[in-house]
């Protein structure tokens, strides 16, 4: 797929996204907003798994930490501007990424995955038990902040579905751009090299541990930010935002879209949210169905939807070449 086709495609999707509220009902706008937040979370996960090959099973921890931090500021300091609370949420994700990352980065594959699961559970346990801080399994809700102040543009109500949609769209687009650039920096390239051949990367004189630590911080930041947006969107936070099932959902979304592709999480969250929406309308057992669907994908088509699309394209190009020659 050449550059201009890609560029046109992106532009098309952007225009479509901006125009959505005109021809879609509130229900779909609500879903799309959720999809975009999950896309951000999924993208931060892609940087770990797809790009660097690190299978983290506790990624929801950063999502939740960001959410709880923002909620705590909104709850505990009513005068604070919402934008600042989002910033704090993102920073808490960054710090959590550094902290947990520093403890797991030396671990090899199996240990690493297990350890991330353990830390994820630990964060959940703290959120669940520390009633004084986090409200326990009731969570936190009911803060008084109702509006978001944009310099020059005015005040916007946080309960306004369309405003939230555009706000999240803006942040999502910026995040996608930043993540894309990240993969093209020397650091991003180093991480890709680590995935390809960690021994050789080491023997090129590269400090792999430092690179990984920076990665953990960055992905924590993005995940924390998405978590902060999420709690604004849902108007509450609860321990199930960072439990094992949430971490699993992140993995499911990645696998549906294709966990090795940059676009994978974006496509994956779209399909996931709509699937869950329609399945849960029919049965309560949607988590079970999604779990089985996930296992089938891993067994038979781990490249996901984006992988499927790429394969189709390759075949068409191959056939074209055959015909032309």
């Amino acid at each position, binding site marked *: 797929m050449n550059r201009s086709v890609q560029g046109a495609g992106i532009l098309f999707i952007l225009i479509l996204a901006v125009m959505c509220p005109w021809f879609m009902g509130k229900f779909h706008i609500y879903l799309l907003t959720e999809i975009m937040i999950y896309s951000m979370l999924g993208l931060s996960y892609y940087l770990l798994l797809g790009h660097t090959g690190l299978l983290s099973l506790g990624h929801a921890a950063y999502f939740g930490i960001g959410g709880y931090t923002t909620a705590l500021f909104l709850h505990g300091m009513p005068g604070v501007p919402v934008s600042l609370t989002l910033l704090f949420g993102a920073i808490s994700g960054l710090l959590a990424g550094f902290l947990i990352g520093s403890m797991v980065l030396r671990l090899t594959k199996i240990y690493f995955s297990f350890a991330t699961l353990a830390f994820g559970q630990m964060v959940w346990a703290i959120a669940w038990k520390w009633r004084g801080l986090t409200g326990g399994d009731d969570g936190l809700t009911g803060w008084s902040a109702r509006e978001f102040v944009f310099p020059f543009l005015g005040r916007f109500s946080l309960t306004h579905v369309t405003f939230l949609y555009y706000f999240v769209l803006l942040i999502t687009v910026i995040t996608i751009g930043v993540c894309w650039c990240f993969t093209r920096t020397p650091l991003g390239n180093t991480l890709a090299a680590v995935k390809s051949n960690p021994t050789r990367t*080491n023997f090129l004189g590269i400090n792999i541990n430092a690179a990984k630590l920076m990665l953990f911080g960055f992905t924590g930041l993005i995940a924390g930010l998405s978590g902060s947006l999420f709690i604004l969107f849902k108007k509450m936070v609860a321990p199930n935002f960072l439990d094992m099932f949430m971490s699993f959902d992140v993995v499911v979304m990645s696998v549906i879209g294709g966990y090795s592709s940059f676009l994978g999480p974006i496509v994956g969250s779209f399909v996931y949210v709509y699937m869950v929406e329609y399945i849960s309308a029919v049965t309560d057992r949607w988590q079970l169905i999604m779990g089985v669907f996930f296992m089938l994908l891993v067994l038979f088509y781990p490249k996901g939807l984006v992988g499927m699309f790429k394969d189709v394209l390759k075949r068409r190009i191959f056939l074209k070449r055959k015909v032309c020659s």
Partner: protein
Amino acid sequence: MTPILRLNGVSKHFGGIRVIDDVNLEILEGERHALIGPNGAGKSTLFNLMTGFYSPTRGSIHFKEKRIDGLAPYKIIRLGIARSFQIINIFKGMQVYENIRNAVVAKHHYSLMFDRMLGSLNEVRKETEYILSRIHLKPFQNELAGTLGYGQQRALELGLTIALDPELVLLDEPGAGLTPDETREIVRLIREVTAGKTLVIVEHDMDVVFDLADRISVLNRGTILATGTPEEIKRNEAVKEVYLGSLFEEKPLWQER
């Protein structure tokens, strides 16, 4: 000439096995030093010790008078040592261009940079292209390294080592598995790219060894049997015993087809 690398009484034990036993070795600056010996003598282990992949059980290693044993590999590499691998260890999933670029970026200490795009670093691009042309892989720069022919992968392996512009180059059987023509090519390449540097090369092909080396060390069962010029080594009785006959008879396996 001063020694650029010194191993003092270096031993490496794995469990009860002494893979390397009290090795004393000096590599002089600017020389081409060959390390030969039967299979299992411990030559690759020595490389692993020199580059920090293993820590010596006993003894010390000094690079340019600075003690390096116990340091992490990446720190040792940064001091100016680079190695190639006996079993090809390239980035198979990345393009040839990207392979060399990884090394160039590392050499410039840009590996952790995140505030600029890789594509905008012009000096990296130029250097990568230069190295690619030196190892004659420029026409294949966009191919995935894993799809290259064996000889070309060997050249890439060499290229990754050279791209770091090290002072001390450690080559572990750079000609393993190559045809006579390819071997001649790679020896010529090695001569070219290691000019002005210190080279330690592990090799089985005696023609290559006698062609390239200023001095030779013979390793057997983890100890150095002898160190000296090619002439001295040819005449050494202990060495002859180990090789069951004169060194000229020692042929690499593939020639015995």
